[in-house]
């Protein structure tokens, strides 16, 4: 397929996944903070969200080095046009990319993403209260879920589907690793605290922001232990939002796409799989979770770069 189209399919999916993940993050944080027994200062409650998306610099620029407040952060992550990673920006870009590939996706897929964008843009156009209400995040999550449901059931399997799947999984793997990294270290500032009495609600919130709380509970009967949570989020192959699951589906996506001549992509894929292979949460935690996740994120970035180089950027007559 056309390189330009593949590029847009990939990014449509990434932006959509980003919007959904961000919506879930903000929503869970909002709900979680409704009953704040721990008297954490506002900045401490909301800064992690900025860290996860790497938006701290952008936030500082937007608010002139000012303090982190709930209202501002929510606004910044939900509707801020100047924030390329806000829900609104992500949805807008997803829809712009979808428009480029309109002839590649089914009519229903286009209608789903277009309707969602129009509805949410209008909701966000209203005054501030919109983003304080969980309803808007539910809208986003429903819209994204609906889009995926329609895609999986109407999109022809093949190369286009491959890029759609690839974008979704790359973003998901990336986001999941970031969320775990930031929140885990928020909750466990000191490794010596592993295994100590912990804040049930904070851990539950982490799992909920990955849509994994109920699945986790059914899978692990020993309560919320950090090592189990790390194991679940990174290595549990049957949990659809785990890092392992995402990486496995990146492999499937590449199979749909075809990797003839795409050597760098192939190597980057192998590197990601190796990162997860033959290791476990125990090992990772003793070596250093942050280092492990950071290394993973670097490999994801390398993978993204390889895909761009070998599938999207086309050099005249050059063999791959």
């Amino acid at each position, binding site marked *: 397929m056309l*390189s330009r189209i593949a590029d847009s399919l990939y990014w449509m999916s990434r932006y959509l996944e980003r919007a959904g993940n961000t919506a879930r993050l903000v929503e869970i944080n909002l709900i979680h903070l409704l009953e704040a027994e721990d008297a954490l200062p506002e900045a401490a409650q909301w800064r992690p969200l900025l860290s996860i998306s790497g938006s701290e610099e952008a936030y500082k620029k937007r608010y002139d080095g000012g303090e982190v407040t709930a209202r501002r952060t929510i606004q910044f992550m939900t509707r801020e046009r100047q924030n390329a990673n806000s829900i609104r920006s992500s949805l807008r870009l997803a829809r712009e990319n979808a428009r480029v590939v309109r002839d590649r996706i089914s009519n229903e897929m286009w209608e789903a993403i277009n*309707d969602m964008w129009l509805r949410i843009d209008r909701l966000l156009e209203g005054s501030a209260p919109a983003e304080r209400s969980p309803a808007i995040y539910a809208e986003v999550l429903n819209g994204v879920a609906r889009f995926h449901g329609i895609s999986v059931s109407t999109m022809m399997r093949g190369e286009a589907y491959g890029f759609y799947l690839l974008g979704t999984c790359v973003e998901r793997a990336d986001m999941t690793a970031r969320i775990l990294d930031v929140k885990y270290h928020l909750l466990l500032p000191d490794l010596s605290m592993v295994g100590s009495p912990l804040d049930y609600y904070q851990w539950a919130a982490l799992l909920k922001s990955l849509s994994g709380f109920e699945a986790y509970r059914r899978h692990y009967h020993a309560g919320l232990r950090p090592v189990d949570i790390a194991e679940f989020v990174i290595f549990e192959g049957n949990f659809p939002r785990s890092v392992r699951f995402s990486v496995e589906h990146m492999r499937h996506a590449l199979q749909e796409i075809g990797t003839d001549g795409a050597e760098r992509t192939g190597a980057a894929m192998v590197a990601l799989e190796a990162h997860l292979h033959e290791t476990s949460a125990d090992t990772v935690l003793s070596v250093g979770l942050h280092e492990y996740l950071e290394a993973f994120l670097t490999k994801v970035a390398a993978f993204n770069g390889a895909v761009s180089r070998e599938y999207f950027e086309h050099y005249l007559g050059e063999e791959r």
Partner: protein
Amino acid sequence: MLPSLGETSGADRMPYHEFYLDDFEPRDHYRPLWEHIRKTGQSALGSKVHEAHLALRSEGVTFTVYSEEQEGIERVWPFDLIPRIIPANEWVPIEAGLKQRVRALNLFLKDIYHQQQCIKDGVLPAELVFKGKHFLREIMDIDPPQGIYTHISGIDLVRDGPGRYLVLEDNLRTPSGVSYMIENRIVERHILPEFFARYRVRRVEHYPALLLEALRHLSPRGKDHAEVVLLTPGIYNSAYFEHTFLAKEMGIELVEGRDLVVKNDVVYMKTTHGLRRVDVLYRRVDDAFLDPLTFRPDSALGVAGIINAWRAGSVALVNAPGNGIADDKAIYPFVPDIIRYYLSERPILENVPTYLMTRPDEQALVLDNMERMVVKEVSESGGYGMLMGPSSTPALRAEFVTRIKANPRNYIAQPVVPLSRHVCYLDGELESRHIDLRPFVIYGEDIQVVPGGLTRVALTKGSLVVNSSQGGGSKDTWVLAE
């Protein structure tokens, strides 16, 4: 010899009403529809209007109006739900006339870009051709595949006072509107199936299939190895919806200039698995922007070297570059002669009476009667660069007089043809508005016409300007089966 203005009767100046026979009665073919509307009541139509708007918006059936802001204004396609109905017997001569006209214009183009025999035989003045803005010297002596230039034509028709169909204008470059023709049918069927129940309406949705067949017919590698693509200027083009629509309906790749590259006079697409050869390019990019090596060097929309590839015969371009000379408004008055010259047949469809400003007696006649004329600049399209005599100011008319005298070759004039009127459902009321018709003609292995076409409506009360970029709307068009 053109009739002088004095011969135009009062009846000729009254617009033909397509729907109503007189104040009380509809025309026969509208009677079933009219009875149905009366029975269900006008207010019931109100919710249908809303339904139609939702359907169109959600489908993304839009067009973009050029504006000064960064983001072009995307408007939902304005659709009127009262269909325009053409009885079978009315359609027969229209179809025959369209085919005849396109056949003749194609022969004209072939001649103009080769021996130019029609000029040598005095059919039309040489200077009109050679001074034509759209006559492209670069096209001379190129042999397009199958000898076809006018693969896709949109011939605009209007009806005069007595109801005769006349050709208002030929569009042989990148005529648009066929996607709206089809979407109008889809929406009409969706919201008012009960209308259809009372008629036998001929289908239109096979247009993309017909077109694809015609395109594949042109492939230099033969029909069975035809890689057909549609070249679009991109998402900011006002007709982008149509580009995506057609590419999707035909199942072909939608490309932009930057997706293509010419190597050794062969055109290729840049794909995720390397370069893939292109055989037929349906291009919706204007001639001037098509090839920076041959035409405008500043164009980012085209493909460097594509004309060389076309000249070498390795790719088919649809429509052929250079067609603009045949739909040039200065050539338009000669088309009936062109039909006679190439086909030795009487034109089945006639032109709207037209005066050339290069002819002194005609210029004098027009300058004396500016308030009854439509004056058109030969090189503009989309309804701009035009004087509507009856609704203009003395100052504007004086300005056009100056322009005409300064550059007579650039202007033609026509007595105002009162476009026919039809009934529209606007703001809860049934009101009359002016309409025209753009049927689409495909020239492939043979010449085919899809029954009907796009009926455009001048939504502003009293206006005769139907172009969507200036606030026009449209109707579903029904040609009845016998």
